[in-house]
């Protein structure tokens, strides 16, 4: 596999942030966006191509995780909790 180019990494970053923005839960959404930004920023200056590839694969796995969770469409309200009022 050809080493990931700068454009591919940036593309991955964009896609990850876009998908993370779709989380319906406030806490998960903000955590995902913040963590992705931090992780990409932290590894901005990595030069070793093997390490870059490893990080890119890790990011792709996390993107898969985000996509799977979003596809599940878990309802935010559950029936018996609607009796709770404050």
């Amino acid at each position, binding site marked *: 596999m050809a080493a990931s180019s700068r454009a591919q990494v940036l593309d991955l970053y964009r896609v990850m942030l876009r998908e993370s923005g779709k989380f319906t839960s406030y806490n998960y959404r903000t955590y995902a966006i913040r963590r992705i930004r931090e992780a990409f920023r932290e590894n901005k200056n990595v030069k070793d191509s093997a390490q870059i590839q490893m990080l890119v694969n890790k990011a792709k796995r996390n993107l898969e*995780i985000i996509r799977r969770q979003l596809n599940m469409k878990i309802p935010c309200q559950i029936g018996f909790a609607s009796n709770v009022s404050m």
Partner: protein
Amino acid sequence: MLWRAACRVATRIAGPSPPRRGLRLRGLDQSPHPPGFSDVVPPTEETVFRPLYMDVQATTPMDPRVLDAMLPYLINYYGNPHSRTHSYGWESEAAVEHARQQVASLIGSDPREIIFTSGATESNNIAIKGVARFYKLRKKHVITTQTEHKCVLDSCRSLEAEGFKVTYLPVQKNGIIDLKDLEAAIQPDTSLVSVMTVNNEIGVRQPIEDIGRICSSRKVYFHTDAAQGVGKIPLNVNDMKIDLMSISGHKIYGPKGVGAIYIRRRPRVRVEAVQSGGGQERGMRSGTVPTPLVVGMGAACELAQEEMENDHKRISLLAERLVEKIMSNLPDVVMNGDPVQHYPGCINLSFAYVEGESLLMALKDVALSSGSACTSASLEPSYVLRAIGTDEDLAHSSIRFGIGRFTTEEEVDYTAEKCIYHVKRLREMSPLWEMVQDGIDLKTIKWTQH
């Protein structure tokens, strides 16, 4: 240039601004449909505002990566890990062993020393009752502290009913035990010392390394309930000379209903099994190991190891922010527990001249608690606060703020603002506050005539 443009695009499409947490729980399904199985599909959008979650000591939300690790074992890979004759069993067992390795590497132990249980309560029961009963012929003394979790105190109470002697060590004003008290309490017939690593109500960190050193020099087993500390502060069972450790899954962003106990093999700690059965988990905890839960716990431990430093730094900043905001805007606020030997994510503040329950009810759009979840149903002030010597009135006005991996700066700011507003409002209504403002010393007041 391209980087900045990408960032701009990313922030613009990063979803709608987070919904302002409102007081309303309106928008609920008012129709007479029976809950749960109606023909109305429940909405997937967050149309109802739910309170901010600031009670991470009670439980934590599950990390999405943990849920993802668990899913295959809930759906397709459903085998019993103890089935030896087919691949369903083998793959399930492989997953359990992998999770065991993940938990072991977080605390620096060997995987064979990890036993999976149903939670830290069961682990505490196994540690205390199991060790005490195994050595009961010659050793009948157990030492613990007054600020332990209810399950430890209750296990000790049941041991007392069986004829053991238990010493409950007092804590100093800052919540930490005095090591000299511990050394004086250890007798020739002491089998176990149990001290929790991080307290769940006030967040103090006990000096585990020193206690471990004392216990190993006096040849006494050392058990620590590390449910609130594992994955949040670095723990190593060999450096800290810990013989038994309780771990809870749902305190480190894992699933509820699973925990683990670390039982040292070199030198071997013998434990009498509390639960009898088919001899699973080395005979110490019989019963089918719940593969999905255990896999979730393993994933949570691995994540905790990766994210520990990052999380700790962030949580410390947020905690400082919360405390600084509240204390600089409100007089007469006391932080319970030692400020230095402290895990930053658990902040227990006492607001003088304000009743704790009324403040909790006023802060209804923030999920908080005034003590541990197990004692939240009773009206008594927490025994932990009583043990550290808090005045009765301050003990009633304490609130515990929990900050975790998913807590945001906005949530902390909102909580601080609301807290300041409501404390000021409640103090305005309080006659005690009026008297204090007039310069009257409340301790000189005679409340009754006789």
